[in-house]
């Protein structure tokens, strides 16, 4: 615990909820494993979506493929949010000050902004395209950004423990 962190994170770490996570022999390791399992699901779904946006997997019509893989990505993201909250709560004050965690938070926000940009800017131009149709530039831009950002988020996540 570090008092240098903002009070809300100190309070979270000192809560009974966070103490229960730390004191359970299995809860923290289970959240740790679960976070990575959901990450692999998330990364797989995201990779399919982004490769499609970049013009790969062109035998499949983009609309239905993107819609289905997005459901997997959202479910996996929810799982990561739950497990990530457990991991964060246990060490909230240190993590809030950890530079790699801070970078991860910024990149995560950037990832969500990219989702919004895709939603309003690229998706309307993509979802009704036929199989094999060339992808518009806006699809490639958001797809490439998504790949780069989410892989960077994952790399940051794995690096937190080393800083």
């Amino acid at each position: 615990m570090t008092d240098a962190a903002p009070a809300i994170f100190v309070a979270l770490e000192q809560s009974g909820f966070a103490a229960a996570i730390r004191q359970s022999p299995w809860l923290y390791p289970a959240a740790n494993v679960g976070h990575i399992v959901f990450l692999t699901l998330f990364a797989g779904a995201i990779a399919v979506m982004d490769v499609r946006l970049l013009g790969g997997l062109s035998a499949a019509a983009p609309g239905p493929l993107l819609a289905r893989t997005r459901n997997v990505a959202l479910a996996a993201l929810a799982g990561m949010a739950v497990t990530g909250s457990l991991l964060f709560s246990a060490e909230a004050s240190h993590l809030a000050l950890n530079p790699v965690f801070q970078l991860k938070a910024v990149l995560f926000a950037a990832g969500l902004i990219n989702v919004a940009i895709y939603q309003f800017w690229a998706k309307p131009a993509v979802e009704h395209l036929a199989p094999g149709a060339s992808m518009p530039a806006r699809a490639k831009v958001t797809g490439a950004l998504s790949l780069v950002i989410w892989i960077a988020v994952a790399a940051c996540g794995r690096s937190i423990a080393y800083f």
Partner: protein
Amino acid sequence: MTRAVIFALASVLLTSAAVAHHGWGSYDANKPVTITGPILSSKFENPHATITVRASDKVWTVTLAPTSRMSTRGATEKVVAVGQDVSAYGYPSTVEKDEMRAERITVNGKTYEMR
């Protein structure tokens, strides 16, 4: 284009994974210390158990191992309880003042590996 992007990203990811080999990076392995004294406080918690020890020079915070690993190796909550005399060999933190990460600890003549 797609393949080039994927290859570049995979390279970045693999390289960063190799750099981040394990979580001892913020401890100075070139300056190992052995501290000995009574345990003042003990938290048998995840992700790492920690104890504070009144050594001859100052009170150290000693970071140990995850609780399940501690228990598996016999370093249970009772072994690292308050009042026990402990000797800890490890590396001082380059970030946290008066903190060290123990490579191994000895309590009552028995040595427990933490890594």
